[in-house]
C-alpha cells in the first residue's frame, strides 16, 4: 500500500513542477515571440519566476501543516487559472498596445511597448512562481508524514526531475504542436486535473467549492480552446494591420472589429526555426491589387510588389560595379528563391549553391503558387543546388569549393541566433571561401540619416574590416545593401542592362556613409562578444 501511496505522491509532485516550469517556458516564449526575439525580456521573466518560487517557498515554511494542506487545492486552482490564461493575457496586452500606437509594422518594437509586455510577463511568471513555491513544502509536510520520513529524498528528486522534463518536453513537443494559445490551455487542463484528483484523494477535503471552481476553470478553458483559432487570428491581424483605437468609445471598437473580420486571414506557419507569416494587404501601388507580404518572426522580408527592385539591385549592382560576372555563386539564406531567379539571368553563371536552414521555407518556395509565380521555379533549375544547412556550419566545411561571389540574404539581426550571422567569425569564414577577386554582398539596415557613433554602421563596417575585407560599396534602393571585397578594384558604372527602369530610379550609391564610420576595434561584433545593432535589433 505504501508503495502505491509513494508512487502517487511522486507522480503528483512531478506533474506539479512540470506544469509550473512549463507555464514559465510558455510565458518566456510568448514574451520572446511578441517582442521579436531579444534575450533580456524573457530572461527577466525566468528571474521573476525564480523570485516568486523562492518567496512562495519562504512563506510556506512559516505555515503549519494544517494551513498548508488547506491551501493546496485553492492555490493549484489559481495556478491553473493564471497559468492557463497567461498567454492569452500576454497576447491581449500586446494587441492592446498595438492598437493604441502608431508604430511601423514589421520594424522595431518601441521601448515602452517592450517594457510593458515584459512587465506583464514578469507579473504572470512571478505569480505562478509564488503559488508554485508552496507545492514542494505541501507535498513534503502535509500529506503523509510516515512516508515522507523515509522517502523525502525521492520525492524531492522527482520534483526537480519534473522541471527538467518540462524544459525538454514543453519546448520540444508541446509548443511546436499546439502553438501559443492552446499550449497554455493544455497545461491549464493538466493543472485542473491535478487539483481535481488531489481534492478527491489526497488532500482529504472533498470541498464542493473547490470542485465547483475546478469545473468553472475547466469550462472556461474549454470555451477558450474552441475560440483559440479565431483569437489567434485577431492577434495576428491586429499585429499586422494595426487598426488604431484613438478613444475608448464603443463605435471605435466596432469599426476596428469590422476591419479585422473583413480582412483575409494571416497565414502563419510554425517551422522548426521561425514563424512564417503571409499577410495580404492592399498593394502600396494601387488599392485595387492585393500584395502578399512575407514576414519571418514578425519581421518584414519582402512584399510581392516591391521584391523585384530589392532583388534586382542586390544581384546586379555589385556585378556591374565590380565589372566581373562570377561563374560559381553561393547564396547563404535566400530560401525564397528570388535571388536565385535574378542570378540565373546570367548564362555565364555555371553553378549556384543555395544553403538555407529552414526546410519548411524551401518547401513553401518550391510548392506554393504565390512563391513560384515570383521565383519562376528558380530553385528547381539544374544549375541550382539547394542544401538544407546552417550557413555558418556549411562555411566551416573543408570540402567546399571557393566561390566567386557570396550573396548573404538573411533576415536582419533581430535575435542572438541571427546576430551570429553578422559576426567577424562568419565573415572570416566567408572570406576563406571566396576565390581571388571575389565579392560578398549582404543586405543590412544601415543608418542612412544620422549615423551614431558605435551604432549599426560602425559595427558592421568594423566587423567586415576585421574579417579581412578592404573595399566596401554601400548602396540603397528601398533597402540598403553592402558589397565588399578583399582586394580593391576600380568602381565602374552601376548601370546594368538587367535592372529595370523602376529599380534604376530607386538606386542610390551611398559611399558617403563610409566617411562617417569610426574605425575602431571596439566596434567589432564577435560571437564571443556580441554587440548590439541598435535599439530593437538586439
Amino acid at each position, binding site marked *: 500500500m505504501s508503495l502505491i501511496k509513494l508512487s502517487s505522491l511522486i507522480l503528483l509532485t512531478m506533474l506539479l513542477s512540470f506544469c509550473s516550469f512549463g507555464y514559465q517556458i510558455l510565458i518566456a516564449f510568448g514574451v520572446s515571440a511578441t517582442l521579436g526575439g531579444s534575450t533580456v525580456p524573457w530572461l527577466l521573466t525566468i528571474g521573476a519566476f*525564480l523570485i516568486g518560487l523562492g518567496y512562495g517557498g519562504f512563506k510556506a515554511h512559516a505555515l503549519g501543516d494544517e494551513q498548508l494542506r488547506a491551501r493546496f487545492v485553492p492555490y493549484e486552482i489559481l495556478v491553473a487559472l493564471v497559468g492557463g490564461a497567461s498567454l492569452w493575457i500576454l497576447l491581449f496586452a500586446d494587441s492592446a498596445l498595438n492598437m493604441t500606437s502608431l508604430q511601423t509594422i514589421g520594424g522595431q518594437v518601441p521601448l515602452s511597448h517592450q517594457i510593458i509586455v515584459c512587465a506583464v510577463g514578469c507579473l504572470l511568471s512571478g505569480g505562478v512562481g509564488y503559488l508554485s513555491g508552496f507545492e514542494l513544502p505541501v507535498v513534503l509536510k502535509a500529506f503523509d508524514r510516515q512516508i515522507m520520513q523515509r522517502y523525502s529524498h525521492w520525492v524531492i528528486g522527482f520534483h526537480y526531475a519534473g*522541471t527538467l522534463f*518540462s524544459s525538454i518536453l514543453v519546448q520540444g513537443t508541446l509548443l511546436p504542436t499546439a502553438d501559443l494559445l492552446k499550449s497554455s490551455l493544455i497545461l491549464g487542463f493538466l493543472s485542473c486535473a491535478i487539483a481535481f484528483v488531489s481534492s478527491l484523494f489526497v488532500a482529504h477535503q472533498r470541498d464542493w467549492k473547490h470542485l465547483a471552481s475546478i469545473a468553472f476553470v475547466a469550462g472556461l478553458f474549454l470555451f477558450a480552446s474552441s475560440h483559440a483559432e479565431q483569437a489567434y487570428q485577431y492577434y495576428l491581424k491586429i499585429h499586422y494591420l494595426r487598426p488604431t483605437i484613438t478613444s475608448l468609445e464603443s463605435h471605435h471598437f466596432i469599426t476596428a472589429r469590422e476591419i479585422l473580420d473583413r480582412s483575409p486571414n494571416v497565414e502563419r506557419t510554425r517551422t522548426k526555426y521561425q514563424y512564417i507569416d503571409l499577410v495580404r494587404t492592399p498593394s502600396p501601388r494601387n488599392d485595387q491589387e492585393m500584395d502578399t507580404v512575407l514576414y519571418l518572426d514578425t519581421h518584414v522580408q519582402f512584399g510581392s510588389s516591391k521584391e523585384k527592385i530589392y532583388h534586382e539591385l542586390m544581384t546586379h549592382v555589385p556585378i556591374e560595379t565590380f565589372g566581373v560576372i562570377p561563374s560559381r555563386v553561393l547564396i547563404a539564406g535566400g530560401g525564397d528563391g528570388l535571388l536565385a531567379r535574378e542570378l540565373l539571368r546570367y548564362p555565364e553563371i555555371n553553378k549556384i549553391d543555395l544553403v538555407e536552414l529552414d526546410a519548411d521555407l524551401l518547401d513553401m518556395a518550391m510548392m506554393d503558387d504565390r512563391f513560384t509565380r515570383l521565383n519562376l521555379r528558380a530553385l528547381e533549375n539544374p544549375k541550382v543546388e539547394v542544401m538544407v544547412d546552417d550557413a555558418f556550419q556549411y562555411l566551416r566545411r573543408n570540402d567546399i569549393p571557393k566561390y566567386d561571389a557570396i550573396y548573404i540574404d538573411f533576415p536582419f539581426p533581430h535575435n542572438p541566433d541571427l546576430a551570429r550571422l553578422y559576426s567577424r567569425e562568419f565573415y572570416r569564414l566567408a572570406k576563406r571561401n571566396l576565390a581571388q577577386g571575389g565579392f560578398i554582398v549582404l543586405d543590412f539596415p544601415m543608418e542612412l540619416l544620422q549615423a551614431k557613433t558605435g551604432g549599426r554602421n560602425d559595427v558592421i563596417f568594423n566587423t567586415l574590416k576585421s574579417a579581412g575585407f578592404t573595399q566596401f560599396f554601400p548602396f540603397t534602393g528601398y533597402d540598403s545593401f553592402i558589397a565588399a571585397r578583399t582586394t580593391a578594384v576600380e568602381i565602374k558604372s552601376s548601370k546594368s542592362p538587367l535592372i529595370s527602369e523602376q529599380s534604376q530610379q530607386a538606386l542610390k550609391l551611398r559611399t558617403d556613409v563610409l566617411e562617417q564610420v569610426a574605425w575602431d576595434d571596439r566596434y567589432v561584433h564577435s560571437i564571443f562578444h556580441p554587440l548590439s545593432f541598435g535599439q530593437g535589433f538586439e
Partner: protein
Amino acid sequence: MKSVRLVTFVVAFCSIVYELLLSEISATLLGGTFYRYILTIGLYIFCLGIGSIYYERIKFKDNARSLFYVELALSLLGLMAPLIPLLVEIGASGMSEHLHKQAVVGSVYLLIIYIGLLSGLELPLLMAIGEKQEEGQSIRILAIDFFATFAGILVFPLVLMKFTGLFNSAIVVGLLNLAIFVFIGRQLNPLPKRSLIIGVALALLLVCANIFGAPLLVDRVFG
C-alpha cells in the same frame, strides 16, 4: 565563518553565471539560443535538487571545509568551461559529423551537470553553517541565494556579456570565486595550505589559458 551572507550571495551568483556561460557557449557552437538556455536552466534546477538530496545522505563533518573544496572545484571548472567545448570541437574534428556534434554536446552538458551538482551542495552547506551561527539564519540564506540567482540572470546579459564578452566574463567570475574560496580557506582551522596554494596556482594558470589560449582556439575553430 565570517560574513556568511556575503559568501552566500557571491557563491550563488557565480554558480548561475557559470551555467549561463555554458548555455551561451552551447548556443554559439550548436545554435538555438532559447532552447539551450531553457534546457540549461532546467538542468541546473534539477542538479540543485539532486545536490541537496546528496547533502542529506552524506553527513558532512566540517561544513566550512567542505564548502571550501566545493568552491575550489567550481572556480577551476568555471574557468575551464569556455575552453573545454572548444577543445573538444577541435579534437573531435576527425570524427564523422554526427559524432563530432555529439561529442561537443556531451562535453557541454557534462560541464553543466557537474557544475550544477556541485552548486547544489552549496546552499545546504551554507544554510547549515548559518543555522549553527544564529538560529533562523538559514531562511535568510535561502532568500539571499534566490536573490543572487536573480541578480546573476540580470547581470550576465546586461553587464558581463555586453562589456566583457564570453571569455573575459568567465575570467571575472572565476576570479571572484577564487577570492571567495581563499576567504573561506583562510578561516579554516587547520589551514589547508596545500590546497590553497595549488588552487590559486591552477586558477591563475587557467586565467592565462583563457587570455592567451582563447583567441588561438577561436581562430582554429572558425578559420
